[in-house]
């Protein structure tokens, strides 16, 4: 089968580029730990916010050990579009694991200036861990349209020096 030289060269170049891009993404994912979250656990969205045994009935920051925190965040549209809690404060260098779920509809969760960006699905807990090395205020926003209050659904993580 005859293939024109220009076409052959372009195909080879394209395949090489794809391999390089896939390698770069694989290095980031498996060598540097930059991944999207898999479902951490299943919960009942009807009771996740009210069950006393559910961490999301009392959402907030919990210090697991010095410098390590678990942040249980509840996203909701009813009665108002918000994250609970809306604000958290940690010292610089803290490693925070975010456990986020929804009590009603699908939301998103993106922490600006970090690689934390995932879907928040009712009935499912999404988990990501971020280390905050630099002091400052890191806003997090909803990235999945969830109703008329979607645009005002946000929060902040304050990292102190």
């Amino acid at each position, binding site marked *: 089968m005859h293939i024109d030289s220009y076409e052959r060269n372009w195909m080879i170049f394209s395949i090489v580029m794809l391999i390089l891009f896939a390698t770069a993404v694989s290095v980031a994912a498996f060598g540097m730990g*930059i991944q999207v979250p898999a479902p951490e656990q299943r919960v009942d969205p009807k009771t996740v916010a009210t069950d006393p045994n559910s961490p999301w009935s009392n959402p907030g920051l919990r210090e697991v050990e010095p410098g390590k925190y678990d942040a249980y965040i509840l996203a909701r549209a009813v009665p108002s579009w918000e994250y609970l809690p809306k604000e958290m404060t940690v010292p610089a260098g803290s490693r925070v694991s975010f456990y986020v779920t929804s009590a009603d509809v699908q939301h998103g969760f993106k922490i600006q200036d*970090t690689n934390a960006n995932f879907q928040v699905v009712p009935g499912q807990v999404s988990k990501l861990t971020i280390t905050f090395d630099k002091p400052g205020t890191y806003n997090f926003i909803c990235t999945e349209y969830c109703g008329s209050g979607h645009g005002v659904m946000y929060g902040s993580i304050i990292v102190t020096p």
Partner: protein
Amino acid sequence: MAKKDKGDEEFRPTGTIAVLTIFVITLIAIWATIYMILVGRGGTL
């Protein structure tokens, strides 16, 4: 426009090569920029 008066065997698509070169350079530049931002923001595990 590329000249064809010497026959198809010597036809060189210079215009296409130029456009594709610009495309590839732009693609690599943008991809690499975003990749460096991704890597700079740290891990998530």
